[in-house]
């Protein structure tokens, strides 16, 4: 891995959506957007639904929609598991996606 880069993998049940290096990742966590740079503390968080952006090391960025899942950061490796990934927001939000304020146990 080159210096200062994150190793990013976005996986949905039937394919690998994105795999590669990035300088920064912004993902829709359950309680709002979360930004991840190199050196981030190990983290495990639920994903809500929304747009995620991956900044390429060469400049420019990829973005797509994800919905429901979990994000894991560990030693500059970012793994995002999502039920849905696509260029459009999902027509139907997956049943177990977090919908804000529908829960008291959070």
């Amino acid at each position, binding site marked *: 891995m080159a210096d200062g880069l994150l190793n990013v993998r976005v996986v949905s049940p039937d*394919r690998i959506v994105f795999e590669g290096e990035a300088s920064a990742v912004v993902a829709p*966590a359950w309680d709002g957007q979360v930004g991840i740079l190199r050196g981030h503390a190990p983290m*495990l968080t639920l994903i809500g639904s929304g747009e995620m952006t991956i900044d390429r090391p060469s400049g420019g960025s990829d973005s797509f929609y994800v919905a429901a899942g979990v994000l894991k950061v560990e030693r500059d490796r970012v793994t995002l*598991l999502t039920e849905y990934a696509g260029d459009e927001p999902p027509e139907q939000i997956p049943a177990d996606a977090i919908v804000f304020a529908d829960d008291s146990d959070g």
Partner: protein
Amino acid sequence: MAGYADVKRRIKSVENTRQITRTMELVATSKLKRATDRVRATRPYAEALHEIVSGLYSPSLSEKYPILRRPDVTKRAAILLCTANRGLAGGFNANLIKRARNLMEDLRGQGIETELHVAGKKGIAFFRFRGVEMLTQRTDISDHPTVDDAESLIAPIRERFESGEVDAVYLISSKFKSAMSTPPRTRDLLPIEADAQASSADAYILSPSGDVILERILPAYIRNAVYTALVENAAAEQGSRRTAMKSATDNAGDVLEHLTRTLNRVRQAQITQEIAEIVGGSAALE
């Protein structure tokens, strides 16, 4: 010995059969290719999810969430059996059905009630004929199963587990080792099998909290187990069908060879007999 015309007719019929089995073999081969790719594509997600779940799991959580409950005694078990909608796939469906019947018998032997949920026309037809009650009968799962198929299949069973109507859930489907080898496999879906490894979650920032994350992703974990089983089952079906149709095609070739030999013998016998008759006739004139 059969007459010339009879043998000729049988050859024609075997040739037709071979044509059909060969076509089915080719169709299965091309479907198998795509199905195998799909099996491979499910692995990264399944592996990553498994890692996260086993990292978060701890036995003390089981009192808090119904999906994690671990019944002390199993009174009733649900069996989810995945078969194919179509036959002509060798022992594929028969093996799965046999596995399910054995499991039901085993469980009953231990004094556990069983209930059956079946996907695939072949399994449904078998148990309907036997008069076994099925709580789920699904025939709408195609060669290309989706996550939604898996969800709609498992959701009612998961609810039954959470509400305590059943205490264990078993999943029977085919393992796709290779196109030649697709043995049936039984998986214990619920209660969740805990890897007793120390929880690695302490070192992480957990948001919202470890148990909430676990409670949220467990349904996805179970659904994904069913999804991968369906995808593997679809590939196993095609593999099994290809093997069966290949051997049928080869057999038809052997039968044809044998029949052609018979045909030639019948023809020769006929000619010999005619010559003998002519010779006999002209001898009588002299």
